[in-house]
Each structure stands twice: as C-alpha cells, then as structure tokens.
C-alpha cells in the first residue's frame, strides 16, 4: 500500500525504458564453432540427396533421342517436345488440377480435424488421429488396390473426382501434422479473449486462429499439393485413356515408348517443386521477422 502511494507521481519504469520499439532478436548463434570434418560430412550428405535430381537437368538439354549420360550436344529439343505434344501438356494440366483440388480438400479436412482434435485427449480422439494418419504408414500399393476396387464399384476410376478423393486422403496427414504443430504455439486463451470482445466463434476463427496458424496451413497445403503431384502408384491404377497424370505419362514414356522427353518433364517438375519449397521458406522467414 505504501509503495503504491509513493509511485503515483513517478512515471512507470516501463514507459521510460521502452521509447524505441524493440525488435525481437534474431536466433542466437552457438558458441562452439562447427568442426571441419562435420562440414565435409554435411556437404557429402547434401550432395547425395540432390545429385540424382540434378543429373536430370543436363540430360534435358541433350540432343540424343535415347538416354545417354553424359548428355550429347545442347538443344531445347526435349523441352519443345514436352511443351508441344498434347499427351504431355494434357497430363501436366491434369496433374496440376488434381493436385490443386486434392490439396484444397486435404487442407480443409486436415485443418478442421487438427482444430477439433486439439483440445481432446480421450481414447476416441487418439483413435481418430491414428485413422487420419494411417495413409502415411500404409504401403501405397495397398491403398492403391483398395481405392481401385472400391472406385471400380463407384465408377470413379479414370475420373477427376476419383483422383482428387484418393489424393486428398494421402494429403490429409501432412496438413494434420503441420496444423497441429502450429496449434502447439497457439494460446487458447485468445479464443476466450475474442469471445469476451464480442466475436462469435466463426469470426474468431477468421480473425484470430487462422492468421496465427496460417503458416501450418500453408505448409500442409504445399505438402499435400506436392504429394499428389508426384503420386504414381494410385494414379497408375486410376488411369484411363481419357485421364492420366504427369507421373503416369512419364512412367509410360520410359516403359512403353523409351522417350527422352521425360528428362525435360522431370526438370520442369523439379523446378516447380523447388520453387514451392522456396515459397515455403519465404513464408517462414517473413513470419519470424515480425
């Protein structure tokens, strides 16, 4: 009480010290330097991971009509093939369409599931979580056969809807995981604060929850997109002459036609996926620098 009275006329301490806006400090660097041998190991592992992907890029500029390494000559012939042949273009278009729709569906379902399961700890919640995650551990061929058999019955084989439904299922776990981890840093008190300020639950979701977990949602959506985009096993079962995706066309081009255009299409895919990952990185750093 006495302290309180004495403090009336003095300016509170925190007003004095915080005149300038303070930015949160960047990640602190460790004290120990990284040893040279560890740097070499890291470089080797890194190369091991990216070399196979990089091989395909020089090959895509080859003039040869069959597969050869090292590539011979230099031309844009294969790219010309890729971007002028209807089969390639059509399958690229199909892949993008399927991946977009599947990612959208997986994102909605995965986000809703993550939000719903976040506060639940019971046995039922754990069961639901496991069920949603199951497609990550099930061998693709098992899912493919199951999907094929049931979709035959429902006349979904070879249709856009069939691809989207099947690919959404394998995309959901990625969204569920990334949104759940984003929710880990989300203070549930904010929901109560928002309600006390007069916002109904759906407004709270739009104005508070979603902006704060957007990184998890975007990450999950991109993973779901990429997963669908390069999915080949289920797509092989669902293909029809009317509708097939790019990975299936690539598979055909090697096994049936021995067409080196695949080098160009692979490069396109590699670059597209790399760009997506860079976007993801960018989203991440922009958020953090706040």
């Amino acid at each position, binding site marked *: *009480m006495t302290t*309180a009275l004495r403090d009336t006329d003095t300016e509170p301490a925190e007003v004095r010290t915080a005149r300038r806006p303070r930015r949160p400090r960047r990640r602190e660097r460790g004290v120990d330097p990284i040893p040279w041998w560890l740097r070499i190991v890291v470089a080797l592992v890194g190369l091991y991971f990216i070399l196979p992907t990089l091989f395909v890029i020089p090959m895509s500029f080859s003039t040869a009509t069959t597969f050869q390494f090292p590539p011979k000559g230099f031309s844009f012939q294969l790219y010309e093939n890729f971007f002028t042949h209807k089969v390639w273009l059509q399958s690229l278009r199909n892949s993008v369409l399927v991946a977009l729709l599947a990612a959208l569906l997986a994102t909605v379902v995965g986000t809703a599931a993550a939000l719903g399961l976040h506060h639940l700890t019971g046995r039922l919640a754990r069961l639901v979580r496991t069920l949603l995650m199951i497609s990550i551990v099930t061998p693709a061929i098992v899912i493919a056969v199951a999907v094929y058999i049931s979709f035959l019955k429902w006349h979904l084989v070879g249709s856009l809807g069939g691809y989207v439904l099947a690919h959404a299922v394998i995309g959901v776990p990625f969204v569920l995981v990334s949104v759940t981890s984003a929710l880990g840093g989300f203070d549930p008190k904010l929901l109560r604060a928002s309600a*006390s*300020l007069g916002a109904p639950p759906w407004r709270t979701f739009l104005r508070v929850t979603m902006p704060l977990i957007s990184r998890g949602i975007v990450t999950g959506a991109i993973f779901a997109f990429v997963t669908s985009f390069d999915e080949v096993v289920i797509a092989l079962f669902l293909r029809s002459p009317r509708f097939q995706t790019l990975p299936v066309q690539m598979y055909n081009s090697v096994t049936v036609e021995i067409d080196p255009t695949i080098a160009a299409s692979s490069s396109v895919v590699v670059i597209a996926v790399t760009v997506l990952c860079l976007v993801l990185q960018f989203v991440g750093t922009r958020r953090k620098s706040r």
Partner: protein
Amino acid sequence: MSVTTSHAAAPAPLPPRAGTRIRLANVTKDYGLAVPAVDDVSLTIEPGEFMTLLGPSGSGKTTTLNLIAGFETLTAGTISLNGADVSELPSHKRNLGMLFQNYALFPHMTVAQNVAYPLRERKLPKADITRKVAEVLDLVQLTGRDGHFPAQLSGGQQQRVALARAIVFGPKALLLDEPLGALDRNLRATLQLEIRRIHREVGSTFVFVTHDQEEAMNLSDRIALFNNGRIEQVGTPEALYQSPETLFTARFLGDSNVFELSRVAEGTGTWEDQTWPVDSRTVSPRVGAGGRSALVVRPEDVRLVAGDGVVPPGATSVPATIRDIEYMGAYRTAVLSLGRGNAVGRARLDATESKLGIGQPVLAWWLVERQRIVAA
C-alpha cells in the same frame, strides 16, 4: 452500455456508465472431481461495485469468474445481469470485458488493431473506431504506441493494452482474473492504482480475482472469500479483517493469534486451564451451539507487560514467554509461546514494549472487545 454500443457518436469521452448488477444464485460447477469446483455459491455484486473474489489456490475463484463470463457451463444455479438470466447465453453475447493474467493480446495485431477489435466486431464506423481507440489509449496512458506489436511491449504495457481493449466497447462489467499476477511488485502497485482510477472513471462493475490478500484489501469495495468452492464470508475489507466469522477468514486475512476454545458458555470461554470473559457481541453468528470455536486476536491488539506488571481491569491476559523478536521494518513483532507453552502467538511491539528482551516472561493481554470468537 447502450450508450456506447449504439452507433450514434457518444459526446463525451468514455462517459461514466451506470454499472450492472451481477447475481449468482446457487451456482454450482462440478467437473466430476471429489468436490465441486464451485459449490452452491450465491452472491450479488452491486452496480458499480469493485468486488474481489479472494481465496487460496484451487478454491474456485477462476471457475466462478469463467461461469460469469460464459466460458464454462453451469451444473446448477443461475447467473443474471441486471435481472436478465444469462445462464444460457454464449460468452460473445454477454457483453462483458475480460482481463487475463497472461494478457491474451492478439500477437498478429498492433496495439491499435487489438483495441479496435471489439469495435470492429460491433461494426462501428471507421471514424468512431479511430477516435475511441485514441481516447482509451490515452486513458491507460499508452498514447503513441498504436503501431507497436504486443511482443514489442513490456508486461505492464501489454496489460494496459488489454485493459484498454476490454473497456473500449463499454462492457456491462469488467472481469479480471489475476491481471497483475505476472508483474513485479512495483509495477503491480502502479497498476493497482491505475485499475482503481479507471474503475472510478468508468464507473462500471468490476469483478477481480486474486489470491493476494493485500491486493484484495487495497482495491476492493467488498471481498468474497472463497474456500473449497464455497464462499466463506462476504464483506468490506474492514469487516472481513475486524469481524471474521470463521477461523479460515481470520487466518487468511492478516495475522491472527488463535486460541481454540474447549468451551464457550455464560459469558466465558475456556482455553487450557484459563477462563476468559467473552462479550456476546464479539461472537460470530456462525458459532453454532456445541460447534467448535476459537478466540482470535490480532497481533497489533496484543499488549505485553513484564511478568510482574499490571494489566488493566477487565482485560484478558495470559502468561507468555518471548521466543524471538522479528524486525519488520516499520515495527517489530514478538513471537510468543503462550500458556503452557504449546501455543505460539505474536504481538506487535510498541515503543514502551521494545525494551522487553528474548526469553523474558511476560503477560500478554488484550481488551475483550478486541477479541473475536469464530467458528473453527
């Protein structure tokens, strides 16, 4: 409240509002644990009153506040605001401001956006929002920080923003759950004063939760003391301190010397082998016939005289030995062993008593009207 939620521009900055009467009738919340978190609580909080819910950890203060806010559903009972039953009303329709211990500011919004949040939800015109935000930031002394993000502010500043956000829409009442719990001592004292000032200026009902008795005493018009999900006693800070009805209240607020009485009858109380006079006016109504009772007296009401000294006639006295003397800054306190030596007590020393030394046999005495017989 209707003043500010209407779209017409209010003339004066944050005009004083008549408060809201909050009534809890037989409110119970049972989580299925051994005892209900809130057990048959009835309490009326008057318009414009500063009511503090005080009590030890786990006594049900937060649960009660959350029930008023609508964050939890009632197991039994009703809650009404100005006579209107809101028991079934979702929290976003109750129009009550809320302050949390960890501030609960929206981290992705600036100070101005945080404060504008409730106004935007109420679809106020943009110009009104800008004006009200500026006014309320001025009220909490945070002018010029509109563009900062919460992470760029200190704890005290964040709580001021939260306070501004919670009152800017003219809520029916403000609910505060240990809002100063995370702040250091000096800042707590500053913000206590600020909260009192804002309570005076805004004039609405405040319901404040704390487990800090000093804070409760400083701030409140009335205190509701919670224990095990029930209200032990409701009253002004003076009433609770000077006329506790139960041993729990006497012990929770301030220091007490406690003598558990074996018998209270015919104007006397028996402790150990002593028989003391008891004034019936100092007997708490909660002391039932045959119920256990205790005599309590505050350390500042206990006087000491050296063993052979004289005690005023009619005062209650008990032989004691000074065990220790504690230096408290403004005064010193003697720690006593009383009677046969099993009971420990305390007496605040005044100027004449300060020459008494440790180990000295003394007589501890107090005036009969200073003692209080409470339910044990």
